[in-house]
């Protein structure tokens, strides 16, 4: 009898112990703390040509930070395909990094989850004040009426990269300024296995970035002023159709681009298969693929007519990466110090040079390194003719829903099916119906 009781006690204790250890990780506090002041975890987005290259760029800087503050930063470079899911999981479980990079277009969506530390005036003071940053970059850090959810880290803009030799061979003297010119130039190039321009047809985010700019040029938006989805207005339909027509009607994009989602279009451009490419900060990437700096030129993205500017002359989204602090961090002070370090003038110069992006910090932008002809196109675009994607909580869902609709339209075009105003409208209607109702 005694032995049975012992066995029962043993079994119960064992299972309780296992239960307790299984649940042991779940002690989350609501806010942050400073319980482990000597350590930080940092999730960096993949900015260079590969994760390995990013590690090589970032590690020396993190070592520098450790020397200054004694705080060890554990780095993880997260590929773009995983980043948003990883952040969502971190937000859900409360277990995440201390500091992380986010795509600036996600700012409002992630802000709505409440997982990121809001940057109020006091927080900004600790990193040298809000006015150190360029306005256009600050415009992509969260909803307008709230404290920013993140701080700008790298700024980028779209530009038209063109292969000088290929355009010259086709008898095009200057890079196209309007879409009509681009289509005409593209048609001259597109023969014998060469194509006018490359696209990432299966990448929803790329599709959104272009469709958004086309919509702006047609005076349209994908959201109403009060933040409701409005994907099927005439301007939006015209914009999406004009974009997909580059493949469907104008036939200056190779049909195979419809399944591109891993930056194959950059490789195609570097290899001289396509003459033009719309990309953000491609220089470092092109160099790593063996394309000589002087073999391509950088021009502003075309507009419908006239020259780039505000309103209908917009020719880029405000692209970029923001740096956010996870609200549940157990080293809030250290995390803030790290943000201060990464946005310091010196680090901004080093990092943005390495990634061929533009510093969102005014003082760093003045540096000679960012005054090359290539960078001045990007800088001018950001300053004069770039607009932030809608800063609404549903932005991420919009990227997926409409981006996927465009992916399907590209698939139609590639498969030889007709892309009509009606089919574009139907695809966008379906996308809008997928959006959250509230």
């Amino acid at each position: 009898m005694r032995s049975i009781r012992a066995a029962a006690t043993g079994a119960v204790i064992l299972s309780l112990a296992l239960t307790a250890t299984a649940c042991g990780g779940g002690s989350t506090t609501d806010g942050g703390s400073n319980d482990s002041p000597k350590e930080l975890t940092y999730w960096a987005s993949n900015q260079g040509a590969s994760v390995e290259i990013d590690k090589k760029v970032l590690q020396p800087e993190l070592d520098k930070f450790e020397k200054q503050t004694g705080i060890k930063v554990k780095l993880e470079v997260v590929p773009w395909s995983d980043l948003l899911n990883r952040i969502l999981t971190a937000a859900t479980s409360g277990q995440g990094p201390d500091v992380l990079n986010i795509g600036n277009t996600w700012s409002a969506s992630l802000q709505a989850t409440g997982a990121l530390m809001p940057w109020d005036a006091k927080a900004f003071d600790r990193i040298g004040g809000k006015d150190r940053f360029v306005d256009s970059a600050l415009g992509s850090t969260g909803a307008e009426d709230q404290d920013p959810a993140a701080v700008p880290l790298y700024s980028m803009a779209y530009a038209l990269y063109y292969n000088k030799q290929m355009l010259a061979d086709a008898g095009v003297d200057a890079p196209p300024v309007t879409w009509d010119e681009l289509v005409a130039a593209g048609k001259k190039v597109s023969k014998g296995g060469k194509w006018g321009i490359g696209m990432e047809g299966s990448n929803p985010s790329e599709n959104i970035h272009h469709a958004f700019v086309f919509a702006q040029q047609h005076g349209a938006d994908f959201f109403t002023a009060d933040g409701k989805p409005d994907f099927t207005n005439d301007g939006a339909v015209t914009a999406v159709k004009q974009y997909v027509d580059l493949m469907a009607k104008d036939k200056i994009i190779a049909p195979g681009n419809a399944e591109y989602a891993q930056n194959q279009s950059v490789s195609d451009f570097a290899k001289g298969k396509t003459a033009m490419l719309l990309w953000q900060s491609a220089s470092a990437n092109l160099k790593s693929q063996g394309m000589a700096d002087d073999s391509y030129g950088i021009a502003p993205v075309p507009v419908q007519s006239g020259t780039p500017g505000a309103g209908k002359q917009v020719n880029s989204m405000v692209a970029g990466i923001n740096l956010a602090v996870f609200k549940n961090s157990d080293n809030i002070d250290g995390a803030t110090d790290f943000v201060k370090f990464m946005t310091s003038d010196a680090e901004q110069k080093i990092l943005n040079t390495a990634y061929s992006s533009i510093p969102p910090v005014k003082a760093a932008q003045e540096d000679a390194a960012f005054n090359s002809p290539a960078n001045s196109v990007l800088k001018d675009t950001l300053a004069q003719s770039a607009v932030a994607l809608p800063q609404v909580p549903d932005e991420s869902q919009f990227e997926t829903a409409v981006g996927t609709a465009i992916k399907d339209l590209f698939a139609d075009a590639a498969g030889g099916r007709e892309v009509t105003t009606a089919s574009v409208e139907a695809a966008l209607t379906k996308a809008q119906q997928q959006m959250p109702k509230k």
Partner: protein
Amino acid sequence: MSPDTAMTATAPAAEAAARKTSPGAEHGPRRRTGRIRRIGLPYLLLLPALLLELLVHLVPMVIGIVMSFKELTQFYIRDWGAAPWAGLDNYKVSVDFDAPVGQALLHSFFVTLAFTVLSVGLCWLIGTAAAIFMQDTFRGRGLLRALFLVPYALPVYAAVITWVFMFQHDNGLVNHVLHDQLGLTDKPSFWLIGDNSFFALLTVSVWKGWPFAFLIVMAGLQNIPRELYEAAALDGAGMIQQVRRITLPSLRPVNQVLVLVLFLWTFNDFNTPFVLFGRTAPEAADLISVHIYQASFVTWNFGTGSAMSVLLLLFLLVVTGVYLVFTSRQRRPSHG
């Protein structure tokens, strides 16, 4: 901790066993407690496993079911408890087949059903055929068997990503063979987008799944006495007759389990379509598992995603239940 428990746990078992060998030594109430002890012990020993099973399987399932009644969007994921109750709203949205969300779910359901029936059928057919052909010993049989099992043994991601490269439009091996070398198509086809994606998915699924059927059927074949075949051969039965009259009836219990397992795996398969197509599958290959993933992770509406999962769970429970009832009813008369 565990060695201790193991030791104390073996003690009463030995005691009980010792008692069993000396019947009649005890009388009255002592005997009854002994019986209770004997009956109770297995349950006691199962208790830790049962508790862990509850923890690992049932608790997450119950949480999932609770989630399906909540409006769990991005505004609440940080603090689930605060998400408002949605009642049956998530279910209503999922099964409203006149509205786009329900329509898409229904479409995805039918695609999955067609895909599963075809995939399971082909896996079973190829696996069984291969197992029967490999039944007799011949030179190189071991090598072939090992080779056949390779797709099953490969890590899913590595295997499927290879198929992605082969299915690529511009540089893929499939188009190279079908179009460039054999000239079967007018122009290179798209396999990863558009309608052909269904066949791409089916191909990979069958390629990956049939070795399992092969393995199970091969094991089942070992249990069929060789004398049956010899007797049949003496009676003049050919290969086909032997397969129809001996092999297939003898394999029936094995096949019943095999088909059920393949059905559940294929119906729920997430890895293959996800690696093949990424987070948003083309309509023609929109399997329900990826569809639910998209409904929850991509649109950040975990309540609706959970509701769809619960519906899927109910469907699979019904199918499995009906299948088991049906097959066990069939089995009984055949034995009687």
